[in-house]
């Protein structure tokens, strides 16, 4: 895998136009009623997934670490935001209590200590990054220190996610058990159930996506990114050249976790619910599918993959509910086998095929007979 990333061949202006379209044009169209509120909300969700996909790509496509725990970081970010949103419900809940409904239901009379600071939005925002970041730091430190890599890293992150999901399903962790958090009312004083708030959330998501893509692009183009890709291609050589690869990987792992967490924090107010089924290993694998489908090793492919797979899912799971998993699973097998570079790689693949065809034609050109035969058949 020593080819230049496909992304570098995609022209800047197109990307700029796409960014403008997502950040400015779509909300504007929604403002004038040309795009339904529902559609915009749906796109907000897709773009959150897109951000998570970029985070996975940073790890997998650029550093060669397939992490099956990205859904965990995503939902941890979501949970942090969810805790703030739950407290913002105030006395508007079912039980008219200051406590979140599920706590009243479980018979608590006082807010647990660790919930108290989540009344503050800045604290919540800090936690969105800190909690998943710390988890990634500790886990990554342990994993990279003992040089766990390749599939072992995947399996371990899968186990981590599985264990965390089991933990969050429990009621006595006091984060809502298997129902999670829902029924949110306000964020920063504005009602979450009106179109304007949702539009601003969408804009924030789109901006974050653009920022993340730009940031990652800068990072991967820097010297740091070069080492990153070198680690992907041959970690031992980098190690023997005197680089502490574990630290590089740890930095990327933590950064990727934080990006996913930020996406999760924006996802929750837009979707209106977070529960432990979001952090299962299957969700992580699903996100990895988007990246593989869109094309890893490029920063736009994952976004493209996340949006297209989820758009397909929205449509197919309504139109062919029985067939949806067959379509997803089947297309995934096909992509892995025949399109190793995903959707983004298709032009290059076609170009490669065309070049081979041209070469073959050039070889057979002196003898026109086969060519005419081909056109006949």
């Amino acid at each position, binding site marked *: 895998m020593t080819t230049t990333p496909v992304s570098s061949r995609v022209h800047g202006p197109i990307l700029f136009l796409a960014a403008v379209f997502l950040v400015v044009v779509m909300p504007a169209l929604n403002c004038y009623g040309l795009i339904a509120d529902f559609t915009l909300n749906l796109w907000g969700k897709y773009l959150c997934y897109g951000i998570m996909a970029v985070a996975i790509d940073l790890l997998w496509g650029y550093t060669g670490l397939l992490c099956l725990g990205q859904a965990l970081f995503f939902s941890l970010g979501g949970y942090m935001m969810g805790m703030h949103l739950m407290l913002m419900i105030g006395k508007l809940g079912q039980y008219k209590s200051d406590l979140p409904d599920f706590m009243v239901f479980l018979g608590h009379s006082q807010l647990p200590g660790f919930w108290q600071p989540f009344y503050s939005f800045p604290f919540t925002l800090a936690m969105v990054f800190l909690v998943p970041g710390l988890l990634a730091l500790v886990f990554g430190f342990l994993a990279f220190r003992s040089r766990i890599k390749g599939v072992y890293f995947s399996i371990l992150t899968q186990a981590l996610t599985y264990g965390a999901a*089991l933990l969050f399903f429990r009621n006595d962790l006091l984060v809502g058990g298997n129902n999670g958090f829902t029924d949110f009312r306000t964020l920063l004083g504005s009602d979450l159930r009106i179109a304007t708030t949702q539009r601003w959330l969408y804009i924030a998501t789109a901006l974050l996506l653009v920022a993340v893509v730009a940031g990652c692009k800068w990072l991967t183009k820097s010297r740091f990114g070069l080492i990153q890709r070198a680690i992907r291609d041959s970690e031992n050589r980098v190690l023997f050249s005197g680089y502490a690869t574990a630290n590089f990987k740890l930095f990327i792992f933590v950064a990727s976790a934080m990006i996913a967490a930020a996406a999760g924090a924006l996802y929750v107010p837009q979707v209106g619910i977070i529960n432990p089924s979001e952090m299962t290993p299957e969700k992580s694998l699903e996100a990895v599918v988007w990246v593989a489908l869109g094309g890893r090793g490029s920063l736009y492919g994952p976004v493209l993959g996340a949006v297209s797979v989820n758009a397909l899912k929205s449509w197919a799971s309504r139109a062919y509910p029985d067939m949806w998993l067959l379509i997803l699973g089947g297309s*995934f097998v096909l992509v892995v086998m025949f399109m190793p570079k995903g959707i983004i790689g298709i032009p290059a693949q076609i170009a490669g095929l065309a070049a081979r065809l041209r070469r073959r034609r050039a070889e057979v050109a002196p003898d026109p007979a086969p060519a005419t035969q081909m056109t006949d058949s």
Partner: protein
Amino acid sequence: MFPPPVRRAALCASLLLQVGAVVVMWLSARAEAGPAVRETIAAAVTAATPDEQREMILSLKATPSPEVVSWLDKWKEGAIFIYQDDEGKATALLLTGSQDAADSYATLRLSDGAPMCAADGSPIRINPKAVDFADTDSGLRRAMKEVADLAALADADPDKRIRAIQDSAIGQNSDKLPALEAVRLLEKNPKALRALEESMAIIRLNSPEPEQRITACNTLGRLHSIAARDMIKSMATETDAATDKDTRTAANHALSAIDSHIATINALGTAFRGLSLGSVLLVVAIGLAITFGLMGIINMAHGELIAVGAYTTYIIQNVFAAGLKLSPFGVSISIPGLNLHSGGNLYFAVALPASFIAAALVGLLLERTVIRFLYRRPLESLLATWGISLVLQQLFRLIFGANNVQVTSPLWLSGNWTVNDVVFGWNRVFVIVFAAAIIAATWLVINKTPLGLLIRAVMQNRNMAACMGIRTERVNMMTFGFGCGLAGLAGAFLSQIGNVGPSLGQNYIVDAFMTVVVGGVGNILGTVISALGIGVADQTLQQYLGNPVTGKILVLAAIILFLQWRPAGLFVTRSRSLD
């Protein structure tokens, strides 16, 4: 045998006489029960006063038998009627035959079973609503219960007898001692004898004489009687320390003996449960130890291959019974059944090889169509097989429905085996035996067959093996098929101890991968040790934390930390190559 003081105290003169009489009469009663019993009961039914009735019922204590109990039950149920003839003489009657036009029935005398005839010889028919039935009051019923309890002690079935003996200790009623003593002289069954000793000691705990209480405590301590624990505990705390020091000491001794016995039982039970959980993990992971451990393929569809085996078992079971109707994709398929009567126990013998073959075939199909292109790209084989697992899960849903299907396990699996108060469920024993058999078979295949030799050669160095003329493509295929077949066996096995549904495999896949990783990739012995270790650790944590989920989370955390210490698992395959 009881020590002399107890004996002396217990067998005071009157009781001795009574016991002797009971035993003699009981022995004779076993020879000829019938008519005498019926006459006594008939007489009791028609006796003049309740006291007389009571007396007569209690006299039956000499001949406790199931027959006596059945007649007494009839009495209690109101199935015995009292006929007053013209002279006012009462006769106990039973109704027989069918109802006639006047709502009347033919009658039989209770005392000898002969038809009841009037003076002119014509049979008497009575309407049950017109005559009185034999009534009972609470005193009579208590007497009847005493007789029935005694009859249970003499039951022919040892299990029932033991239960009756254990029940007799409830309430610590010293009136029951003579009967137990009498039974003890005749009892041969060692378990029943032990139960007798225990019950008698429990009753004697309540004795007014401190000497007896102390002996009873000692006996119960020696027997590790769990049933007596609470009583001894209250004795140890409530007895006045100053006045009755010996009793208190004895009770404390007995209590600590029983408690240490309980601790041993719990430890053994935990170890056994851990072993059986480990065996389940082992069975599930052994196929993976081949495909992942030896071949390096991350087969996320391994769980679905397990489900293939489980569903094959389901189909075979139905073929042996009444057949099966499926309707995948709107096409209805009807599989005819053999309707075998003994199918319930037999089908499993067929299901085992069938599930192996079915899963192996699916595995071969996968290998040929997808996996062989991905041997050099392990991460991508992970993703592709995950796609396959999604497809397979959905296919199961479409073919067999989204709900769990019913696989009945053979009856012999539901029993258990109790050794010294530790319960060994047959299904858990089966789990362990099955796991051992699979491991033995796998080890033989890998180490003692030509195929195994080829497998090991190719897995160690594919290129070198190819140079030596081994057809590595084919060996890959066979190895993968073998691993998948083992997954199918695991499915047949899981269908016996749990639910069979489309997501059966998903419940085990993470655990299975962890087992293989901890054991050390490429080492079957490592997988065995890690599976058993994880199983026992899981059950022990569960025992101490009292919560299965927390235990599981802690085990996962422990595994992650363990891999810090040994990143390549328990058994490392050393090589000089640098990945």
